[in-house]
């Protein structure tokens, strides 16, 4: 009985110390601002290009995502569209790639075609469906951007597997042949260095 009476102030003292520690930590918490990565703004740069785009693909994709949880679901659906241009990089063309037989015949070895441009314009994107359960937060702008970025990645990968590079090569051949014939060459022979290109 005696020891219990003696223990009480000790317990209160302990509680008081804990409360003081808690208050001190609360003060520390309030003093520390939430970490935010400062926006990095890079240097604006102009760069020379020498690319000839010969084909343009317009593609579409439905970007859908279902976030299923026991406390409610969230579902979102976008219609996204992209423009992809492919062609050849004339910077890769050097002296050895052009051979003149005489004034009217020429052989050109063109660089392998590649995808030159990928553009997903915001005006071509639509939010078709967006629904969140009562206990769930709505999709934030960051989340929507993240989902559309995944859609972008998927379109890039799938377009790379289409016949865009073959078409780009065929069109580049037709285009350069016609220009050279306009400049007076009667025999034009075009070949491509290597195959493929970057996806």
């Amino acid at each position, binding site marked *: 009985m005696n020891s219990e009476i003696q223990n009480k102030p000790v317990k209160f003292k302990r509680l008081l110390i804990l409360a003081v520690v808690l208050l001190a930590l609360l003060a520390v918490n309030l003093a520390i601002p939430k970490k935010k990565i400062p926006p990095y*703004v890079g240097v604006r740069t102009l760069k020379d290009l020498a690319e000839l785009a010969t084909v343009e693909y317009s593609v579409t994709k439905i970007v859908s995502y279902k976030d299923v949880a026991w406390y409610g679901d969230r579902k979102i659906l976008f219609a996204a569209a992209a423009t992809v241009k492919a062609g050849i990089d004339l910077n890769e063309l050097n002296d050895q790639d052009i051979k003149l037989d005489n004034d009217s015949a020429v052989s050109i070895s063109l660089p392998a075609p590649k995808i030159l441009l990928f553009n997903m314009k915001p005006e071509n994107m639509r939010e078709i469906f967006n629904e969140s359960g009562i206990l769930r937060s709505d999709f934030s702008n960051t989340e929507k951007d993240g989902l559309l970025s995944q859609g972008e990645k998927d379109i890039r990968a799938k377009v790379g597997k289409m016949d865009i590079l073959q078409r780009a090569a065929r069109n580049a051949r037709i285009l350069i042949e016609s*220009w050279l014939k306009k400049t007076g060459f009667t025999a034009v022979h075009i070949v491509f260095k290597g195959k493929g290109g970057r996806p």
Partner: protein
Amino acid sequence: MKKILAVLQIILLLAILFMLYSPLAKIGLLPSLGSIFRNPQPRIDETPVIIQQVKNIAQMFTQTFYDEYVYDSGIIRTPLLKLNKRLIFIAKGEVISGFDLSELSEKSIIRRDKSIVVKLPPARILEVVINPSGFDTFIEEGEITFEESKKFHEDARRIFDRNAREKGILRNSSEQGKQMLEKFFRLLGFESVDIIIAEAG
């Protein structure tokens, strides 16, 4: 009384633990509570990519302008409840300029022996590219709808276009186009190459 004190002690200890964790999460040393409970990597569903159109083009890209821009929508007040909302994002992308060679006609190329004259249309902005991966949300306050965010993204594209023009993209583009075609025709054996670029209308 004894039980109440014990419970209070446990609550205080838990609160202390939370207060120890919270500043570490704030400075990024520990993951935030939200990120622990959030679905770590949302995966979009597998859907096909459909080709809508294939177009034969003849565009010569001669200049690119890389830009990064911090876009601030400013504080927007919702009409009914007068709530504040704001979006700040970083946009990264490029502006591409050059020539549309499909505008070349029979009369655009004139050859006389070892000399050639090529008449090009004026250089113009061909594409402004800021893809979804090029947008990085920095601050998002209030509920920003998709249409609103789309409007801000389109605005950022217009700013990129304007910045590129101010940096002289079209002048550089014309210069590079001239140099590039001169080099190409000299490789084809022409001794005199004259590239004439039409004035922008």
